[in-house]
């Protein structure tokens, strides 16, 4: 029996959590992964759990639970995001920071924006899991980075690169800076 987390106190009891081999009780080496898509003290909205042991075919046990409901984007978070994306002309939600990007795709977009010499605000989504999940819904976009220009979702890395190549991005940013 496993008890995970001080909050919400989830207890998972796999059928073969412990068993006896040659009269010696053995605790199943259970790999347990819990991904919280919400912060402590909030209702648990989504988690996935994979749990397996490898003790031969009849004892091998593998089960994956996955619960997901689209509720990471609370009305409060939506309000906050509305303000954030309109507070600056260019806002980049990314993994890491502008000086220390923690993902190649995020880095690419930072370098493009730097090269265009436009002021931009970055927000590190790795620091806040709730924000990270909520943003996916807010933008209807499953991955990061996410670029916002004048409060509008512009795109992810591929779209930004493409628009940079065609000159569309420069045009849009120039317009945004003048407005």
């Amino acid at each position, binding site marked *: 029996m496993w008890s995970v987390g001080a909050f919400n106190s989830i207890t998972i009891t796999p059928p073969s959590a412990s068993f006896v081999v040659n009269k010696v009780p053995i605790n199943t080496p259970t790999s347990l992964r819990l991904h919280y898509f919400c912060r402590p003290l909030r209702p648990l909205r989504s988690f996935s759990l994979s749990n397996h042991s490898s003790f031969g075919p009849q004892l091998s046990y593998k089960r994956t639970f996955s619960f997901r409901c689209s509720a990471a984007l609370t009305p409060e978070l939506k309000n906050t995001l509305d303000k954030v994306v309109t507070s600056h002309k260019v806002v980049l939600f990314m993994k890491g920071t502008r000086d220390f990007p923690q993902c190649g*795709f995020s880095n690419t977009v930072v370098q493009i924006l730097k090269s265009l010499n436009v002021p931009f605000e970055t927000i590190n989504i790795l620091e806040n899991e709730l924000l990270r999940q909520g943003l996916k819904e807010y933008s*209807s*976009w499953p*991955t990061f980075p996410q670029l916002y220009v004048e409060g509008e979702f*512009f*795109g992810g*890395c591929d*779209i930004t690169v*493409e*628009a940079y190549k065609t000159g569309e991005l420069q045009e849009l940013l120039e317009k945004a800076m003048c407005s």
Partner: protein
Amino acid sequence: MGVTKEQVESSLTSKLNPAHLEVIDTSGGCGASFTIEVVSEKFEGKRLLERHRVVNAALEEEMKQIHALSIKKALTPEQWKQQQESEKPEPAA
């Protein structure tokens, strides 16, 4: 965990009926990173952002496990034809 190249291909094929599809597993085995090129009539009249949204929607289930999806090309059959022709060397007169 992760998804296979075949799963990605089959979802895209059934939902977008692509004229051309190339899926490359860039994850190094864990199945969480893919690069794709897709040509479909479903992109007709759509901006690039909307086209990417179409692809993301087609892969909604898979995206739960994919961390990086790079859409290198999302073209209409017409654009694809043009692009291929422009890449071909001019035939000698």
